[in-house]
């Protein structure tokens, strides 16, 4: 039955026909029919040629894929390529991290860096920070949280409300926002302690939606769908970033520079860079402390943990609280950066993006999160020109990553060295 080359034509043909049939069924309403507004209102337009092209493309595409897989070389090589890159990154983690940090520090002053580049990088850094925060909960403690955006929202609204109501500055509100989010983390964590896996995911998903719905509907408190405008901008040691400051001096006057809107953009960039770095250092360090190891052990085997005298309640709550706290920090940064927030920024899709960053990066991997955040945030930005096909390309990229690196870009757990023990740092 099998051809000498090891390629089974009959099977490939069957698979291709099956895939084409599925494509035909799906494509019939999606490609074949289209609503157009004609003279007599909405009319159904038929586009059978599109459908045929689509089905044929799937048929031959499936065949090509099967051949590549059957014969392996090219496909597997591409996969190996990704593996080699992953291994290189793993081995050179420290120098790469330093290089990335160095690059991040000089980026805003590079000749090609305009406002747009800095803006996008700031966005990437927000997601890197969120990814690192969620990594505590999902990657280390192994608790699948689909409602992480709730903590992001709590952080953003804590700062927005405190800032607009009491006129408190960003730097005062930042720790408060983090604390608020951590409190909500415990609040969510407590009732769901017994749940695991799928059930936990459902409850956290619900929690995320509850927060968003409360913010949307409790108009007196949060402004409802109108959001909160006029959120204070961060100050540089009391210096404002505006042309005509209301009080005191402004940044450009103090340093004798001519006013430029870019100052604030760059300042914001450095704030989020610092916040993300703090998150990273914190996570790196806590992984080596008993509580960090307890999270990982809890992910591996809860019953064994209990029989070793670990209190699973406190351990899980601490993971939820700390993860939430970093979400809260990122949230208040988001609020101060955009100056306006509304519940629309905190939909489920945000949770999904943050979670996919963590999963794509390889659960528990710090550098993986950075790479994945760049991939997920920058790639759609770059593909903006092909706006219609952007999600298609994005989906395709995700599928490829999952085929080649099913456990994430950098799926490799680095053993921890006990703090205080003799011997070098890894």
């Amino acid at each position: 039955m099998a051809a000498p080359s090891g390629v089974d034509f009959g099977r490939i043909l069957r698979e291709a026909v099956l895939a084409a049939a599925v494509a035909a069924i799906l494509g019939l309403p999606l490609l074949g029919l289209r609503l157009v507004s004609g003279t007599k209102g909405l009319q159904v337009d038929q586009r059978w040629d599109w459908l045929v092209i689509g089905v044929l493309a799937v048929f031959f595409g499936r065949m090509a894929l099967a051949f590549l897989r059957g014969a392996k070389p090219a496909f597997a090589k591409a996969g190996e390529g990704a593996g080699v890159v992953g291994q290189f990154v793993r081995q050179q983690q420290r120098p790469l991290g330093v290089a990335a940090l160095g690059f991040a520090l000089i980026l805003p002053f590079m000749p090609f860096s305009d406002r747009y580049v800095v803006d996008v990088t700031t966005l990437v850094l927000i997601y890197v920070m969120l990814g690192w925060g969620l990594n505590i909960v999902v990657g280390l403690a192994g608790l699948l949280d689909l409602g992480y955006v709730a903590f992001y929202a709590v952080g953003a609204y804590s700062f927005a409300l405190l800032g607009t109501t009491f006129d408190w500055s960003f730097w005062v509100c930042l720790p408060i926002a983090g604390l608020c989010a951590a409190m909500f983390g415990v609040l969510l964590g407590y009732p769901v302690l017994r749940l695991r896996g799928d059930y936990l995911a459902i409850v956290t998903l619900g929690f995320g939606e509850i927060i968003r719905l409360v913010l949307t509907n409790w108009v007196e408190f949060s402004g409802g769908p109108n959001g909160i405008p006029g959120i204070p901008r961060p100050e540089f040691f009391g210096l404002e970033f505006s042309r005509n400051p209301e009080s005191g001096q402004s940044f450009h006057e103090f340093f004798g520079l001519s006013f430029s809107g870019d100052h604030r953009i760059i300042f914001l960039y450095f704030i989020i860079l610092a916040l993300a770095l703090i998150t990273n250092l914190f996570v790196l360090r806590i992984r080596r402390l008993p509580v960090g190891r307890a999270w990982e052990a809890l992910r591996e085997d809860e019953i064994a943990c209990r029989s070793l005298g670990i209190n699973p309640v406190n351990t899980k709550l601490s993971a939820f609280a700390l993860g939430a706290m970093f979400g809260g920090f990122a949230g208040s940064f988001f609020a101060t950066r955009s100056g306006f927030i509304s519940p629309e920024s905190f939909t489920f899709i945000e949770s999904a993006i943050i979670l996919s960053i963590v999963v794509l990066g390889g659960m528990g991997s710090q550098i993986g999160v950075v790479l994945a955040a760049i991939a997920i945030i920058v790639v759609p930005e770059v593909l903006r020109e092909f706006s219609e096909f952007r999600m298609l390309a994005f989906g395709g990229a995700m599928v490829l990553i999952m085929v080649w690196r099913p456990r994430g870009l950098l799926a490799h757990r680095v053993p921890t060295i006990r703090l205080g023990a003799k011997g070098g740092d890894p």
Partner: protein
Amino acid sequence: MLSVEGLHTFYGPIEALRGVDLSVASGEIVTLIGANGAGKSTLLMTICGTPRAARGRISFEGNDISQLPTYQIIRRGIAQSPEGRRIFPRMTVMENLQMGAVTADEDHFDEDLERILSIFPILGERRDQRGGTLSGGEQQMLAIGRALMSRPRLLLLDEPSLGLAPLYVKQIFDVIREINERDGMTILLVEQNAYHALRLAHRGYVMANGKIVLVGTGSELLANEEVQNAYLEGGH
């Protein structure tokens, strides 16, 4: 040191333990043998607080521990090497041992580690290897080593010979004797391998259907006809 009186435990409507009395004195090795489903593992787990005892009293060093949560029972000086070993597969041998020491005083860590690596030299050779990549026997040693890292006064071992090659079984039993004789560790051992367990133990209990049916010293039970017929038939 440990005494269990009139212990009843339920899994839903099923009564797994029907009034168990058992005691372990300091410095003793006590073994618990019996057929599958007799309630041996349930008894060990109930001592550790999951599942919780429905009736009866469990006291450790004079204090009732039957209402404490598992992690507090463990912190009082009981360590358990659970059934099925339950080591952390993705963590290294070293990290597994560190996890064993979470309740112990930091200052003892190096000393305890050295002691355990001298009992199980193979763990020293494998210290940076992931737990999941060890062989079954090595995993069992790791599970026992991990339990010992907390400096327990009472060690509960649940079927340490399960699924191991005969050579490893002998090694594990030798180690159990060694830590009892050298360190004076009190051990409660649950075993299917009745012959080895009874030869090792000072005293033994035979369980059937959630009750203790026979008590005696190791050699008495080995010589007992009922025990021979039920648990030692067909060699060892």
